[in-house]
């Protein structure tokens, strides 16, 4: 169980093995990891407890990553300002534009190498503690 003072990362992806992959890399780097399987579950969880950073996949049931980010940005601050890293299997210009428009800070193409993930996470929310 991570140190409560640590930075909390919420991983939002419908593939449980992807979440596990990220979890292992991030926990090893000292981050506290929570999971959600789609944008709706993520919103519910964030309303209960905020996160320092979101890793958001695009293709998810019930609420895709972009819809989630738009919904997030409509909530009250500081929740609405939570930084977000978007992951997707594609990198078409329209996807990048959509990500930017939805308020994403970074866009990574899957499968994301663990080292790259940790590096981006540390960059976006500072060191784990």
């Amino acid at each position, binding site marked *: 169980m991570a140190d409560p003072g640590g930075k909390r990362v919420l991983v939002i992806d419908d593939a*449980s*093995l992807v979440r596990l992959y990220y979890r292992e890399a991030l926990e090893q780097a000292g981050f506290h990891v929570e999971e959600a399987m789609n944008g709706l579950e993520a919103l519910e969880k964030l309303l209960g407890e905020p996160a320092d950073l979101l890793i958001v996949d695009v*293709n998810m049931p019930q*609420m*895709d990553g972009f*819809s989630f980010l738009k919904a997030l940005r409509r909530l009250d601050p500081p929740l609405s300002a939570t930084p977000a890293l978007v992951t997707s299997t594609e990198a078409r210009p329209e996807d990048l534009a959509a990500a930017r428009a939805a308020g994403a800070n970074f866009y990574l193409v899957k499968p*994301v*190498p663990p080292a790259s993930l940790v590096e981006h996470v540390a960059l976006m929310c500072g060191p784990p503690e």
Partner: protein
Amino acid sequence: MPLIRKDPAGTSAKPAAPAADLLTRGAVDERWSAARAVGDEPGAVERLALALASETEPRVREAILTNLVRRDTDAAVMAIAPQIRSDDAARRSAALDALRAMPLRLQKRLPELVSDPDPDVRLLSVDLARGLNASDATSLILDLLERETEVNVCAAAIDALAETGDERALPGLSKCASRFPDEAFLQFAIRAAASRLAASASD
């Protein structure tokens, strides 16, 4: 006491029958009501399919999809499936959710969807296999895995297998691992999936 009531206050007013083109031309609420109201008249599924293709308002889209889902027919599945190819993530997601709500109908179309020439369609469709029973899911996904060349499609297939498959998937997973020795995530995923499937099998 302020709460005493005896007489009904609810109205039983039904919304007026929508004009034929309210489905595509009305205001949001009108389109929503019109989508809900489409019944069993001839051409209903075609009308809904056409409206679905052009509708951008999420809740109207959902109402159209619910109307199709309610029918639970092959025609309904065929009306929804093309939406999986959309460039719009929300549209794709809505279509997949609707298809998930028709598991028995979907079962017949899944082999076709997971063999689609478009890897994006294969990737999204393989997730639908989670709704099948263990034996059908395992067969379908193993078939796909054997010939699949796209890493992300394999990843999606392995994840679905890990959730829904059974121990007969183990040899197929091994083979996949040897086909992609340099793909770190696939190696990880296959190991994790194999250990889950082995754990369920051991009882």
